[in-house]
């Protein structure tokens, strides 16, 4: 029999490149093991009201679950399995209490999507080489959510600063993850990007 099963990262290989790890160096981290639960509900439903996250924004729920409104009537809940499950359970209860549970559905996309985090002062400069969004702070502030082509891969992008540092989460289809990872590394090479 094979080894005990562990979640396999969609990034199998990390390309050779040099990083000096300077202060302004952007960093790239694979966070694909994060639980990702998609919630669908009507905008005028009790579930939407309970979430309280409007389209194009993301907020922290329950302390450590990031809920991003990626599309109208769609939310992506990111976090550890137990915390995400708790948030989902709460939503299910809200839906049932509302008397119209059929207006809500959930799909576990943990395995279907890769999740990368790119951080640092040069993160936006790296991303502007692969994505045509306006990364200015006023157009993409902390908590902003967008869907866009990143190196021609459709992605959900969440500005999610950490430790007072600029940081973006990028969620893509899992099958494109290795390609996307390589494309971001290539884009960040001029800024000495580091994989952490």
């Amino acid at each position: 029999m094979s080894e005990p099963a562990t979640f396999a990262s969609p990034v199998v290989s990390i390309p050779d490149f040099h990083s000096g790890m300077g202060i302004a160096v952007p960093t790239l981290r694979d966070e694909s093991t994060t639980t990702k639960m998609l919630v669908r509900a009507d905008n005028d439903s009790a579930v939407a009201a309970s979430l309280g996250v409007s389209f194009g924004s993301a907020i922290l729920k329950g302390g450590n679950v990031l809920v991003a409104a990626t599309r109208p009537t769609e939310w992506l809940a990111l976090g550890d399995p137990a915390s995400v499950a708790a948030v989902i359970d709460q939503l299910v209860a809200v839906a049932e209490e509302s008397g119209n549970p059929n207006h809500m559905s959930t799909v576990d996309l943990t395995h279907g999507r890769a999740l990368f985090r790119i951080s640092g002062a040069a993160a936006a400069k790296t991303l502007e080489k692969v994505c045509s969004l306006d990364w200015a702070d006023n157009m993409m502030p902390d908590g902003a959510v967008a869907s866009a082509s990143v190196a021609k891969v459709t992605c959900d992008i969440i500005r999610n600063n950490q430790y007072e540092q600029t940081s973006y989460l990028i969620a893509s289809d899992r099958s494109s993850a290795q390609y996307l990872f390589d494309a971001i590394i290539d884009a960040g090479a001029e800024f000495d990007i580091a994989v952490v």
Partner: protein
Amino acid sequence: MTRLPRQPGEVIDRSVPLRFTWNGKATTGFSGDTIASALAASDTRIFARSMKYHRPRGLLTADYWDPNGFVQVGDDPNVRSGHRLLEAGMEVSAQNVWPSLDFDIKAANGLVGRFLTAGFYYKTFMKPAKLWPTYEKVLARFAPGGTIDLDSPHRYHDKRYAHPDVVVAGGGPAGMAAAIAAASVGASVMLVEHNHHLGGALLWGTDVDRATGARLAAECMTSENIEVLLDSTVTGRYEDNWVAIVQRSHPIAVERLIKARAKSLVVAPGLIERPYVFAGNDKPGVMLSGAVRRLVNMYAVQPGSRAVVFTANDDGDQTARDLERVGIEVACTVDARRGENIVAAEGSTKSVESVVLGDGSSIDADLLITAVGWTAPTSLLNLAGDRPAYDPAAARFFSSRLPDNILVTGGLAGDGSLDELIEHGSATGNLAARRALVVAATLQKLTTRAAPLAGDPGEVPADDRAPLGRNPHPELHRSSTHGIVDYSEDVSSKDLFAAAKEGYDSVELIKRFTTATMGPAQGKLETVNTVAVLAEARGETIADVGTTVWRPPYAPITLGALGGRIFEPVRVSTVQSWHEAHNATPILAGQWIRPEHYGDPVGEVRNVRSGVGIIDVTPLGKLDLQGPDVPKLLNLLYTNKWVQLPIGGVRYGVMCAEDGVVMDDGVTARLGEQHYLMTTTSSGAGGVWEWAENWLQTAHPDWRVHVTPVTTAYTSINVAGPKSRELVSRLTDIDLDPQAFAYMQVRTGTVAGIDKCVMWRIGFTGELSYELHVPSGFGLHVWDTLMDVGADLGVAPFGLEAQRVMRLEKGHFIVGQDTDGLTKMPSVGMNGLIKLDKDDFSGKVELGLALDHTASLALPRLVAIQTTDPNIVPEEASQIVRAGTNEILGRITSSRMSPTLERSICLGQVLPEAAEPDTILTVVMTTGERITAKVMQHHAHFDPEGDRLRV
């Protein structure tokens, strides 16, 4: 020419000599030199030969636009020597000369010049047509330009997006002032300068000019709000101020294409000096005043020893003063403002030796300088819809109408003192920034994800700038003699007169007929003279004739820059690393990289038919459907019925577009009360999702259905073969007993210790098989486990090729291969799945008509075909014709040699008259040979009853 003593404004670093070669000879220049200035400083007078007549050519403008300065640098052809900076070790050579630049046999073209007149491209080499291949070879030998080494390594080209508030095109005094003013009110600015230094004409100007330029440049370079892009060009302006910028010589790339969405664009490219048309105007030693001032003041190069200056403006006057300052004799200053003129430059073909003036006198000189006015490079304005108007008093074109997000400053806007130009630039930058900030605020207010905006964005400010004046300037285009108008294309004023006489008297026609303005200078030097000569030929004014339309790019652009970093996403399954480690031959299917086979596709087929094999079918499209109205949606998308599908059931369906044409097929399983999993073809996954959403969002927004693509949420593995049940049973808690889990059913459970797996019992290969859908993070684990625990059963992977063979043996069609854009559902033999008694479904009307009028419509039918000779496999797409004729009756859509049947098998579409079983068909092979084949009773060549599937 030689190097002058140190000049106050020189940009060369004499402490850094650079060695390079020119036509194989060792030469030296300095850091900061252009190739042209270094060559000029080492007494090079002839830089190139002209395109058509191969006349010797020397420097004319000594900058980017110099039509005579194209050289080969190593394996890099068509390098602009007036612009490219010198580097140590460069191997520079002349282009398109044989055997040498000094003695070029192709100059014999000049002897037959009267046969190479305007439009000769369209008049010669036409007859006899059979000689064209010979003509082509000869003409190729005369093609201009450098040589390309196909073995040269590809260089890195980069791409970037930007959203600056203001883009300033041009880093002269007005452009720099605009950038500073815009930045000072908080705008983010991109300042784009074509040359290697900010400053424009100030660089070769007076002490005051240079000091002012240096001050402005320093302010730009140190401003936090200004990104200065040197050696970069705004090549085009497109809708909504989408501005393309080519950044050359970037530290990490030879070129970088910047796609900037500018909220305001300030156009400040300055003016481009215009040549004068007269006899001998292309002899080496005839230069424009700007060229001389650049060579003297920036590069400390002596351009000649005895000069005649023909001037109509202050720049010409200043050129004479510059020459006198450095000790070059000015033999004569000919002042056009006093009505004086020049009519010819005389001498050998390689150098000016004397100048003939308008009064007939002749003056010895090796340098003739002309300063007769400027061309306004209005390209970016034209691209924004402007139609610049000609002002004869100022002898140049000016903008006439522009949108609010484009502003003009500098010489393009008018004339003035340096202070006036800077003041206008500042006012323009300020206005551009204020307008940009209104646009930015509006965007921010309208963008959901943006930070909240306090207050109102306000109105777009009106243009409150004081306009620049227009200095009077004589209209000087052609003397009383004929000369070259387009140096790049070797087009003379005589050619233009001849073309006009032939009837090509519209400016757009004469351009194309003579190729004037179509060379590398792209009209910057020659457009106005072309128009002026045509106006003269027509007896009209320049304003009457108008100009050609400027199109992008502003300056020629490399294909590498346009290509940039090429994004070509590829998709792989979680098992890809295993496939690679086991020598799978990859095949690209759409974006997916898939294993075509593992070395022996025939063996893979036989292993599945006799034992068990596994295939990675992850790319199979998968959609999660949830909600109480899913059956309604399925009823709409598929042609068959779905309301009665039980939980745990699987059903096959075909999707047709509204015209009844087959668009996709697949199976859908009911996992729960309101939960379904749909599969589509691999290539149809995206399209079916969009199609379903389209129906839901437009036609049936009241239906409560959520559709979510989950293709890669699951790693999909098909376990196929008579021993598949045995293999899967070793790994799962799902009851595989045929009574408990029959064909066309679905179960969920644990596989190899992984929970939440979905298992279908279906069979594309025609064998007993189980399709496992495993959460992707554990896909490789399950695959490895299947291989481990099935070793004693002989389990082996099989690839796409083996699967295709087996599905063909089984007679399963593939949408897009066995169907095409006209194949309606009755053609594929599945009329039983068309349920016209449903309320509605996509294609219902068309399919109803097709069924009612089958005979008259004569729709082709998909049939199984076997060749008479079992060893002949017709290529896919081979035509099926009526015997003894070329009348097409159909085509082979799929064909393979069947390892199971050991004979050739096919599917094909044929007209009804040829579709009956046992019909003998004639198939035309790609060799032209005709073979016979027979229509079979069933689609399935193998196991038509399906016994192997249902065990």
